[in-house]
């Protein structure tokens, strides 16, 4: 095996350090290198995913140090799938943002690209690491780059959003450390497989306290209510590709971390907790979203809502539910990226982020409007778009588990979601125009990026079988905990 999971981490980090140097030689290197790196990551991830699906779990031990001292990177069908997804979306977001950054002052581009790449690499790291403390480190990498990117624009409230993000993020890291500490003192290891193996020896109260610290800290990353105060601000103030990255990459990494810890490490039943908190998250987020006046903030709340639904699905816990949750994560990543990308163009052309200025914008940006509408219909879950299937599977799973009120509640919240999305679609197409004709048409690379996402939405919507198999394997891999532990420990 030539390609190992280490490439995921090492290549982007090296490239990140190389960019400032290479920029001296070639000016556009800062733009190009992340693309190359991310493309390489895609190749890596697909190769790995294929390998994993054929041969079983890969566990790469770094520098030969065994657990608990060493760090290992694990590729299961589950993590491989998420890593591939994150890589692909990272690449598409890079493609989208390739010329977007022309508007920035020349010197800043490289910082942006570095941070962006680090954020994606860190997210991949979170996903593929098999070590708890390593996960903490990657989370912090993601966090620091995310704080910086949130404050990237000078003239806005970016700093404020970033500060809030940082404040809450520090809490997250503090509690994560506490949780890790408890786990370490009780099990004496940081390797997740080993922890999982030894978890039954841990006294119940310790286990639960550790669990609570994990829930709090990772809940912050996964934007769970009431820990998500930072999220709308950060989403709305970051540059749009970054917002897309938050939605498509960072939040998925956060959810992954939460799910990994809850499902693999702990044997405490958290299903009800996840369902209830997921539902509350979803409800509050959509309630907050419906009366937003700011497009990106609204999309941010909507993202939170989707994450809530993902948590619900994981909370149901059956095979089909996990399958649906993964499907929804994928859909959410794709669709919300598309929405942020298109929304970014709307904002670009209107000077303020307010919804009011979207009136009749389709005349100026027909293609972007079309993509936005597609995304809006898809994320609400209208067939025949991709969003429908994930929601459908989750509901079927909920039905199988006889969570009647959950089904009704989720669908009720969906109605709220539908209301505000369609209001915007109506506004885009049918409200009276107010602004001057657009001066910023989408660049070709942005169109390609958005078209790819839109195409995905349509194709998966009409023919979901395309990705059923990897999703199925991923769901199996997540649920089959003993297999995971045995594989890793034997490989080590």
């Amino acid at each position: 095996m030539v390609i190992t999971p280490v490439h995921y981490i090492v290549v982007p980090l090296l490239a990140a350090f190389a960019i400032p140097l290479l920029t001296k030689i070639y000016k556009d290197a800062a733009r190009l290198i992340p693309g190359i790196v991310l493309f390489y990551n895609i190749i890596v991830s697909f190769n790995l995913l294929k390998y994993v699906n054929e041969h079983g779990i890969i566990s790469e031990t770094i520098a030969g140090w065994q657990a608990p001292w060493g760090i290992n990177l694990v590729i299961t069908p589950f993590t491989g799938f998420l890593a591939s997804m994150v890589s692909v979306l990272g690449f598409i977001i890079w493609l989208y943002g390739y010329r977007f950054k022309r508007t920035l002052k020349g010197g800043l581009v490289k910082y942006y690209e570095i941070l962006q790449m680090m954020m994606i690499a860190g997210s991949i790291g979170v996903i593929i690491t098999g070590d708890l403390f390593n996960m903490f480190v990657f989370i912090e990498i993601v966090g620091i780059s995310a704080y910086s990117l949130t404050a990237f624009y000078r003239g806005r409230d970016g700093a404020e959003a970033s500060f809030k993000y940082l404040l809450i993020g520090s809490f997250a890291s503090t509690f994560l450390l506490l949780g890790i500490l408890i786990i370490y003192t009780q099990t004496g290891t940081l390797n997740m497989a080993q922890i999982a193996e030894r978890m039954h020896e841990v006294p119940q109260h310790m286990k639960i306290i550790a669990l609570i610290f994990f829930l709090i800290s990772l809940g912050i990353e996964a934007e769970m209510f009431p820990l998500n105060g930072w999220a709308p601000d950060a989403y709305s103030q970051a540059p749009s590709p970054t917002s897309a990255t938050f939605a498509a990459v960072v939040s998925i990494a956060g959810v992954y971390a939460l799910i990994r810890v809850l499902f693999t490490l702990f044997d405490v039943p958290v299903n009800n907790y996840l369902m209830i908190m997921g539902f509350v998250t979803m409800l509050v987020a959509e309630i907050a979203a419906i009366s937003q006046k700011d497009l990106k903030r609204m999309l941010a709340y909507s993202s939170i809502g989707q994450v809530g639904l993902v948590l619900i699905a994981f909370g149901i816990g059956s095979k089909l539910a996990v399958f649906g949750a993964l499907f929804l994560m994928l859909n959410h990543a794709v669709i919300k990226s598309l929405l942020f990308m298109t929304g970014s163009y709307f904002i670009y052309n209107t000077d303020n982020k307010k919804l009011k200025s979207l009136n009749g914008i389709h005349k100026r940006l027909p293609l972007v409007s079309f993509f936005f509408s597609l995304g809006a219909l898809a994320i609400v879950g209208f067939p025949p778009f991709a969003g429908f299937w994930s929601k459908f599977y989750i509901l079927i799973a909920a039905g199988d588990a006889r969570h009647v009120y959950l089904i009704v509640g989720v669908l009720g919240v969906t109605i709220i979601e539908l209301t505000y999305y369609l209001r915007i679609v109506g506004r885009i197409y049918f409200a009276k125009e107010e602004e001057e004709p657009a001066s910023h048409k989408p660049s070709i690379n942005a169109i390609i990026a958005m078209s790819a996402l839109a195409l995905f939405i349509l194709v998966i919507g009409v023919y979901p079988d395309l990705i059923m198999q990897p999703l199925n394997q991923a769901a199996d891999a997540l649920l089959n905990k003993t297999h995971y532990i045995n594989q890793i420990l034997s490989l080590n």
Partner: protein
Amino acid sequence: MIDFHTIFEQYKEIISIAVYGTAVFLIIIGLYAVLLKKHLVKIVIGLSIMDAGIHLLFVAVGYISGGTAPIFSPGNENAANTMVDPVPQALVLTAIVIGFAVTALALSLVIRLYKHHHTANIDQLKSLKW
């Protein structure tokens, strides 16, 4: 010369309680600062203090009374039994670095905020809400 080792041995219990207590105390001070102080810099300081508390806790947990430095050296192959746990120390080192980075970033943000809003009162930084 004072034999610290024996002093530690004598006051092991007290010291252990003192270390843990200090850690918890630091965390609480940090929390207090973060939650109730209005000045941004004080909040950042609170975060740092909280971090320090956590780090102290980590080190304290890893400490074995009378342990040696976690170094394997020739002639000392059985050190694993007596030396303190190296992992928390490594972790704390990493965490300190990260905390440093975060604090630096936070302070830069504070400067930015102060420049922009001419205030460092967190209550007045509410332009993003609802």
